[in-house]
């Protein structure tokens, strides 16, 4: 198939950028979106141009690296799918496809489509851990966990930290990401000792990093490749209210 892509090109963190149009010809409908960019980049390199910089790693939907907004939707038009798992057959021959980086003050553009997501690391460092003695692994059944909690914690733990929620949020908020981490740890017995400090510190780190507040608009859940439910934000709010009332 033959398509056109309009891609955000920006040579460095402080440089200005603009959308640049490229023709991509003879792409297989079975190619992934990233493979399409690979093909385009080969042409750019052969022509002596700078290839389009973009993040990618696993290319199997589990690392969360492949951040890009495709036609205004984080990770493109297919639900619950990362860009690396998106296929060109989702588009039509002759389409013009817009590709932009995540747009958030807390995720500054490094180059082209690559953004710096270390703000998420700061949120995790503030409380996304449990305190546990190191050494040999404890027996798996040493601490019983109700099945319901284990399943809910696992669902929350599937968050891959991709940042699509931030990219889609009209307020540039990372509340869904933070809520997923709070729920994942706070549902487990091992996560109880830090449950109160975790929610306060992680929310503080999120606010300090320059993310906006949540207005329950729900755009985040719609684009989340892992389908993290919006209801977890209610859990964060509830944990937060209880934690501050104890201080």
């Amino acid at each position: 198939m033959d398509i056109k892509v309009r891609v955000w090109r920006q040579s460095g963190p402080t440089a200005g950028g603009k959308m640049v149009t490229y023709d991509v010809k003879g792409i297989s409908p079975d190619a992934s979106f990233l493979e399409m960019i690979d093909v385009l980049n080969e042409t750019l390199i052969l022509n002596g141009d700078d290839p389009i910089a973009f993040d990618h790693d696993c290319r199997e939907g589990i690392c969360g690296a492949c951040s890009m907004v495709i036609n205004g939707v984080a990770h493109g038009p297919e639900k619950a799918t990362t860009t690396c798992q998106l296929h060109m057959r989702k588009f039509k021959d002759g389409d013009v496809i817009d590709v932009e980086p995540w747009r958030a003050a807390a995720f500054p553009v490094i180059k082209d489509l690559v953004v710096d997501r270390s703000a998420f690391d700061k949120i995790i460092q503030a409380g996304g851990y449990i305190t546990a003695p190191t050494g040999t692994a404890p027996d798996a059944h040493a601490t019983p966990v109700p099945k319901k909690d284990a399943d809910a914690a696992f669902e929350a733990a599937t968050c891959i930290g991709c940042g699509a929620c931030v990219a889609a949020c009209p307020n540039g908020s990372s509340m869904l990401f933070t809520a997923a981490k709070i729920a994942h740890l706070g549902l487990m017995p091992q996560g109880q000792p830090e449950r109160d400090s975790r929610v306060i510190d992680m929310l503080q780190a999120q606010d300090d990093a320059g993310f906006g507040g949540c207005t329950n608009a729900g755009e985040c859940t719609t684009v989340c490749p892992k389908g993290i439910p919006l209801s977890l934000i209610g859990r964060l709010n509830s944990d937060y209210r209880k934690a501050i009332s104890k201080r």
Partner: protein
Amino acid sequence: MAVDTPIPKTANAAGATARPTPRKSVRPSSVILKLVMAVSGALLVLFLFAHAAGNLKIFVGETDFDHYAEWLRELGTPLLPHGWFLWIQRIGLLAGIGLHIWAATVLTIRAKKARPVKYAHRPKIQGSYAARTMRWGGVIIVLFVIYHILDLTTGTFNPAGGDSDPSARVVAGFAPERWYVTLFYTLAVVSVGFHLRHGIWSAFRTLGQQTTKGERRAQAVALVLSVVLVAMYLSVPFAVLTGLVG
């Protein structure tokens, strides 16, 4: 080697300090701001229902409506001097709306700063119309409330004037030849409906509602309350317009 090395006090699994030094931030957190908005908003919603119920008294009769208005001033007497209850309520409402607008403004500024560069390609936001219009809808509501007080409370903009009976002000205010007033009123009341359709649900969530089943229930409650409120408020001007009252 299995020698007991004392664990440094600050170490933990993530290699960060065990308890990040609490930053004494003077900025209220985004969830605190939402809590302020939810509690003040809930207070305003309670008032809106009480006010709407009182308005319906005009269907019983115009003198009954005027008695109701007088009763509001006598509420609390003899404990409170005449008219004090109303002033206490007004101060409470002003504080509520002040806090609500303050929290909304701080969060709006933060949200704008959080996305300094806009997307070149942005399809219509998928969320509800109500959720998208909370901020501008709120501004319309406040402008309306100011006009509304000058019209029906002080009578400044009312053809019947401030010294007339409350029911006379209602009838004169919504007279057919002042259709543009009724139009503006309708627009504002519908804005309140949209604001509350998202707002009431959002308040449940802010206060900790956290199940998917409860989410649907809270959204249904918000929708029903908003529709009922809009119907109660629109019934009065349309009754005057069609001659049912007056």
